[in-house]
């Protein structure tokens, strides 16, 4: 109490003539809190991951990554992303196109539906697939009869990942395409372009930065997804373990150095994603600014 009163008195001092800025002390305190928080919760863990990973030297680090199980996990993660991201790219563009450029009944329902994967817990998402395709699930017996494995196999992991990363591209594109409107597409049609030409020559170039942004986010999540994948994977070493699952297994087995070595790959992925994201974000911002300037010029 006394402290806050002292602070108030300090801030009331006429040392700071400008009416709109806080006193120096307040500014430093706020900045300090922010930096301390960032350091504690973001930088320290990141550094710790790499420190722990390299704890037993670079050779141990590399050999941990060279383990057949580790390589299998990397392969599976890449495969999953390689399937899930293009699927969601296609779906996202199609959904955004339909929502932004056409009027139809049930449009707002579709928008809500796209958000479902964001709204439900990833574990529930995984469970849905177990309930659907698991041995005692709706389609389980039929799949068993036809010798098709989805749960505790690669298809289940891909399905769960696709479901969880479903909204990223569409969410990124819908506002962008809505803002751009349909006039350019109409102009292309009048000039004799067909649907594909209109899409590839007019629509796609206009949304490319937003699309790339969505794909980067989608990819990061696809590679890093734990909850949903954990439920459907079955944790079979060398077969159904993705990188995040493999990290957990190693950690539970007290192979800390190896666990952190694999985790460092994911951390690296996060860093690359962040950099790519800010570059692309900056690019799309530039485009947005150019569009805005154009709009201002138009109305002037």
């Amino acid at each position, binding site marked *: 109490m006394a402290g806050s009163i002292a602070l108030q008195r300090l801030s009331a001092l006429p040392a700071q003539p400008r009416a709109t800025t806080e006193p120096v002390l307040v500014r430093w305190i706020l900045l300090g809190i922010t930096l301390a928080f960032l350091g504690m919760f973001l930088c320290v863990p990141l550094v710790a991951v790499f420190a722990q990973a390299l704890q037993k030297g670079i050779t141990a680090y590399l050999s941990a990554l060279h383990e057949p199980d580790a390589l299998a996990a990397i392969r599976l993660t890449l495969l999953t992303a390689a399937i899930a991201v293009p699927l969601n790219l296609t779906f996202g563009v199609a959904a955004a196109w339909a929502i932004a450029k056409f009027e139809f009944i049930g449009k707002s329902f579709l928008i809500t539906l796209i958000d479902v994967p964001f709204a439900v817990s990833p574990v529930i998402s995984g469970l849905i697939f177990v309930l659907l395709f698991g041995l005692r699930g709706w389609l389980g017996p039929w799949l068993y009869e036809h010798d098709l494995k989805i749960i505790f196999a690669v298809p289940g992991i891909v399905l769960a990942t696709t479901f969880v990363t479903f909204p990223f591209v569409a969410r990124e594109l819908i506002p962008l395409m809505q803002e751009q409107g349909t*006039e*350019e597409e*109409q*102009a*292309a*049609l*009048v*000039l*004799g*372009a*067909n649907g594909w*030409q209109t899409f590839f*020559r*007019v629509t796609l*170039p*206009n949304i490319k930065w937003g699309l790339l942004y969505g794909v980067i986010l989608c990819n990061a999540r696809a590679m890093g997804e734990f909850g949903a994948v954990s439920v459907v994977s079955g944790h079979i070493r060398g077969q159904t373990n993705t990188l995040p699952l493999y990290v957990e297994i190693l950690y539970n087995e007290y192979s800390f150095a190896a666990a952190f070595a694999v985790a460092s790959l994911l951390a690296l992925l996060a860093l690359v994603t962040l950099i790519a994201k800010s570059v692309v974000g900056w690019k799309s911002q530039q485009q947005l600014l*150019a*569009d805005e*300037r*154009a709009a201002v*010029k*138009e*109305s*002037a």
Partner: protein
Amino acid sequence: MSIEVQNVRKTFGDFTALRDVSFQVPTGELVALLGPSGSGKTTLLRIIAGLEAADQGAILFHGDDATDRSVRDRQVGFVFQHYALFRHMPVFENVAFGLRVRPKALRPSERDIHARVHALLKLVQLDWLADRYPSQLSGGQRQRVALARALAVQPQVLLLDEPFGALDAKVRKELRRWLRRLHDEMHITSVFVTHDQEEALEVADRVVIMNEGGVEQIGTPEEVYEHPATPFVYHFLGNVNLFHGRIHEGWARLGDIELEAPEHADAQNIPAVGYARPHDIEVTRYRNGTAAIEAVVSYIHPIGPLVRLELTGCDSGDLIEVALSKDRYQEMNFQEGERVFITPRKLRLFVQESQPAAGEGLPKS
């Protein structure tokens, strides 16, 4: 190529955008669709282009039914109100687009495309901007690029939606003269939409005046201005004074004036309104034999080639606007507050029932 619009109707939900519209545009003519916002003129233009489908009716190009022809096959050039230039392409590519998307068999060679685009850019006087992006151009420049792009595919019909709507007054005036000259050179059948009476009357060969989804009058600028067919057209094209009164057995009585109305010979005391333009009203200081309306000069605007007087009718209290030539004004030397007598030289009578709910809030130039 001539355009024929036959009994076109269009509704959007509960809103009737067009009710049974028909008219023709002869080959090579420049026609304006003129009307206030919400009159259906843009919808009509989009239906002609094929960007919108009519609920009923037909569109004929050169006598052939094109109602179900796709927008791609109509061979129309369309200039959008906000230009709709492809923002990620430089000016050159914007203009070349219509040629590049043609099927291989019909696509001109790269050299021909180059030649044609540069010829068009020269025509719109923007040859030097071929490498710029649309965002780097001014509104007037963009408008001309949009026009060059529409002309690149050698359309049979050119359709322009509020082509000068988003430009400032000066550029607007320049561009519309330029459009008129361009049309005189190319003789391509053109239809443009506008809500600006001055623009329509200055540029077009013929004007189609629209209101609430219907056609009010079609005619040359002179015809529609000098002989408005309906009270709406009177209101919409320039200022007009209203004199309320009644018609009885071929005679109309508006305040103190009485005049013959032979076309209403069997009218039995029905309410009517007389319409007279400000420059068709005579103002005198004394009652000179003929019946006249007594009024008081309430305000004088001596600016411009015509002097405008605002009068207040002594009986009705209505505002009456009169335009006098400068010479006449100096000769008479009216003063504010003075009592005068007015007689309409030219007056058109409309029976009250036929008057649409127009009147208030219409643009007056």
